């Protein structure tokens, strides 16, 4: 099996990772967001596990959330009600958007089997008083993880975890760089699967696999690389279907600014003797998500992606009722249009209505 297939296998069967990890009685802590400091969970000897949704239609969650709540969040809650996250020892959310705040409320009230915790991260970046506040919150979180695992987190162990996670980020970025070429070495859908598999896996495993993969594909050229080069951005995409759709319509997905992709690995932690401070600054000295302020950062970063990946067009995939990205796309639209054509699409997380979506993507690619 080639490493790409290995990655696909892990992506398709994440339960294998869980089973193997739990064999020795180790704990798994679920989370939903890149702002959750995975390193702290890892330093306590537990597996940080990013929870993703499924393209299933929503059932029970609709009687808890109103249908106007973010479809992704409703989907996650549906899975939680269905005990699909029963393997988690705890769930961690953070302060990103109103939908996630209510996910915490619902989870805390209605899902007894898995306790839920909210890390209170500031939404304003670069603010010294915010660093101070966040530090207090992270200290509380650290204590909680120590209590949950029964392991003490030392500065040394935390530093090691940071190093390990940064290594994953660097490797993903190195692999991502192979998409800068005129003919990319790896397609957008292949990359998303790899990136998500690496997020799911223990990093001790992901890193050697990523090294091997880079070696395997570095001289590779994907087929169908003549089309316009697309930058994908917007809400979470946790399924390669939408990327495949763009590729099937003749687009080359050159780079994807998603929390399942570039947002996860674009930055690494700055050297710092105090590892807790390093994490504070890692999360608060950059605006990666549309939920945070100021948004100028995000705009500059999109510019960087456009330049580095030689982008011809941008597609915003906004999950229905994802307010942060609905605002961002509307606010950035005019400015971005001056650089490259930008298409904003509303998508169902359950991937229904792909037919209409296809038509619009096709028209956009033809225009490019």
């Amino acid at each position: 099996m080639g490493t790409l297939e290995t990655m696909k296998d892990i992506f398709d069967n994440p339960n294998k990772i869980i089973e193997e990890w739990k064999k020795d009685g180790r704990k798994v802590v679920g989370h939903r967001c890149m702002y959750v400091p995975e390193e702290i969970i890892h330093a306590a000897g537990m597996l940080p596990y990013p929870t993703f949704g499924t393209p299933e239609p929503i059932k029970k969650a609709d009687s808890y959330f109103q249908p106007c709540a973010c479809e992704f969040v409703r989907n996650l809650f549906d899975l939680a009600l269905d005990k699909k996250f029963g393997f988690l020892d705890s769930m961690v959310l953070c302060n990103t958007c109103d939908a996630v705040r209510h996910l915490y409320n619902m989870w805390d009230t209605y899902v007894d089997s898995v306790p839920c915790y909210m890390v209170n991260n500031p939404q304003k970046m670069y603010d010294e008083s915010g660093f101070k506040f966040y530090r207090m919150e992270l200290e509380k979180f650290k204590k909680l993880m120590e209590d949950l695992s029964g392991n003490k987190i030392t500065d040394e162990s935390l530093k090691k975890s940071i190093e390990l996670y940064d290594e994953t980020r660097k490797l993903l970025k190195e692999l991502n760089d192979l998409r800068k070429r005129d003919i990319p070495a790896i397609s957008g859908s292949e990359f998303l699967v790899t990136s998500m598999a690496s997020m799911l896996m223990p990093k001790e495993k992901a890193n050697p696999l990523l090294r091997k993969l880079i070696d395997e594909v570095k001289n590779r050229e994907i087929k169908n690389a003549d089309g316009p080069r697309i930058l994908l951005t917007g809400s979470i995409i946790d399924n390669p279907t939408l990327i495949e759709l763009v590729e099937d319509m003749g687009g080359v997905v050159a780079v994807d600014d998603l929390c399942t992709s570039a947002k996860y690995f674009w930055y690494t932690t700055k050297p710092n003797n105090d590892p807790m401070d390093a994490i504070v600054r890692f999360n608060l000295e950059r605006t990666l998500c549309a939920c945070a302020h100021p948004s100028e950062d995000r705009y500059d970063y999109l510019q960087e992606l456009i330049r580095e990946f030689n982008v011809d067009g941008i597609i915003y995939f906004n999950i229905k009722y994802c307010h942060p990205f609905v605002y961002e796309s509307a606010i950035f639209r005019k400015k971005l249009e001056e650089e490259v054509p930008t298409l904003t699409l509303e998508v169902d997380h359950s991937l229904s209505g792909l037919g209409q979506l296809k038509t619009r993507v096709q028209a956009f690619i033809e225009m490019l």
Partner: protein
Amino acid sequence: MLTAGIDAGSLSTKVVILNQDKIMAYEVLATGIDIGAATKRAMDNVLEKAGISLQDVESIGSTGVGKKKVPYKSVQGTEVVCDTKGALYFYPKSNGVIDIGGENCRAIKFDAEGNIVDFALNDKCASGTGIFLDAMAKALRVKPEEMGELSLQSTEDIEVTSMCSVFAESEVVSMIHRKVPKNNILRGIHKSIASRVVGLANRILLEGNVIIIGGIAKNIGLVTTLNELMNSELTVPEKPEVVGALGAALLARERKE
């Protein structure tokens, strides 16, 4: 005691005569454009069937969108209240109703004493109601009463994604042009309606002993699909279309007592 119940719906008008606990006669007519006239005709017919005159009826109850235009002095009740009474009359052990009418759809949850615990009504959008099915039948040139049966003979699962009846119609027309077999399209249509109805039922966490009423309950295709999606066994009463009218008659009797 003789009482009458009128359900003046948007597509059909139903009248029931109740003698104590027994249904003496009932009538179902198309409402047309004149609710008053339709009600009167239905009442005349049902009185004749029962062999009684209007004077014999001690009290009349009315429900349905046209209840205010009924040309008789009557005790008025909302569909939610009347459906509940009617449902408990047929099935005292039931704890919920799904009622799919011409332009309305509702899900109601109640306790054993008949207290309404929760309910949900559809919004002004017509998808998920009888009128939507009728429009689709027209587009496909099949008889409305045959749709359900035909949909069960589908060979492939296809998706009708448009929620809006106007868009769904054009989607269906394009499928006809693409020569998608009618049975498969019908199955897709039924699934689309059923998912709207289930959405409504889910909003109030409706489960357990649920009965389905309204004219649409006679559509075996829809009931089958609903059972699949709700993962439960819906009960269809013998006369699903008159349950609301019966509830109105029960309401009239209750008030009289």
